[in-house]
């Protein structure tokens, strides 16, 4: 069985190709690279380390069983895994069966955040955008994203009209896109 270079410069695509060949070393390298992202998202949503570990295990085992689910032409791996982690965690939070297999999620981020440096720069921008966002807008966005609340649940919780919540969430998301494109 070929050993995969664990050097951080080994591209995700090379690692995924090796995983397709059944290379356990490549799978471990992908885990080391991305487990923190998946775990952080799961922990933020679930607020429970044990439940977050279960989501982590579940997602990476699915990637091991079906590495072809990752389609590099439709988004980078960090974003893809973050979105799946969030989906799975919300499902777990609501104690429901997973709605989506990992292959169902398509994410497009422009520009691509392939390198570690690109990723770090983008995160500084996004965190900055969140900090300068009006608190009600940020709160609506986070309730939808991290708590999995529907717009009417958010409206009920905040006492705001439904239309206001909808508009806030959309403009909040678009402001994240704008700050990344700047």
């Amino acid at each position, binding site marked *: 069985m070929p050993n995969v270079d664990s050097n951080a410069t080994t591209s995700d695509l090379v690692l995924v190709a090796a995983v397709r060949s059944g290379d356990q070393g490549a799978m471990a390298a992908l885990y080391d690279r991305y487990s*923190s992202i998946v775990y952080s998202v799961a922990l933020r949503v679930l607020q429970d380390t044990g439940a977050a570990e279960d989501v982590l295990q579940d997602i990476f085992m699915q990637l091991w069983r079906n590495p072809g689910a990752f389609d590099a032409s439709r988004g980078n791996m960090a974003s893809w895994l973050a979105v799946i982690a969030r989906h799975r965690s919300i499902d777990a939070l609501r104690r429901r069966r997973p709605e989506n297999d990992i292959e169902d999620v398509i994410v497009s981020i422009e520009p691509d955040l392939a390198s570690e440096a690109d990723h770090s720069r983008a995160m500084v921008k996004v965190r900055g955008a969140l900090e300068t966002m009006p608190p009600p807008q940020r709160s609506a966005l986070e309730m939808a994203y991290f708590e999995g609340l529907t717009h009417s649940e958010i409206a009920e919780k905040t006492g705001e009209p439904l239309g206001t919540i909808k508009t806030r*969430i959309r403009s909040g998301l678009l402001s994240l896109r704008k700050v990344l494109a700047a």
Partner: protein
Amino acid sequence: MNLHEQFADDLALYSLGSLEDAERQALEKHLAGCPTCRRELELLRGDSSLLALTTTGAKPPARARQRFLAAVAAEPRMPLVTAPTPIRSVSAPRRPSWWTSFGWPALRWASAAALVVIVIRLLRQNSELEGNLASLRTQFQAQLNDQGSKLEQANEVVATLLDPEATKIELVAAGNKPQPRGKAIYQRRNRNLIFFASNLPPLPAEKIYELWLFPASGGAPIAAGLFKPDARGSATLVNPPLPGGIAAKNFAVTLEPESGSHEAPRGTPVIVGVGE
């Protein structure tokens, strides 16, 4: 972007899974027929993933890594064997491809040869092992048989995918006209490129389709093969000659004059990669 404004807010909520029943159903119906809104949905999912990425910082405990690696070790996989059952073509006798005629038999013989060498070495190594040789042989033979059957299964899958006689039907949302589309799978390291296209319009007289690789470096597009689709508009290209070490940013297919040079695109693009 010509986004349908009446769906704009709902699309954002939908991307987060926060849109409720009646509105969700109405939007899903619209999405089925609107590629612009589907594209915007992908972008909104990308935007929301930025929120997820802002949470980074927590490290999973070491026990989680051990648990995962143990689970992976307990589920070893063989290369390429992902289909639970072999997919059989409904066609008449299959023509052997380069893959079937060279690739897999060579691998099988290499595997068999390696196992035989190991068995012979074991035989010579130590007379104390003589008592174990019979069981070792049985074990190796079982592995060989197992590997052989898995390779055969993979062989079937690859042969079916590449068989020009196989029935290939693309399914699209009901009521929609199939659109021309293609999928390029490219591995820079070994210069491997597999390209599938479907629903391509019939070729006009004296025209041909050409696949282009757009280098990530931003250089001029590189010719990656001429092809003519079959009567149903399907075509497959396997490992066209390509220069080594080129990272690809995108692929596109153009309609070209059949005669003359094919080193630079002269015709109009028919399909382009969504990454561009």
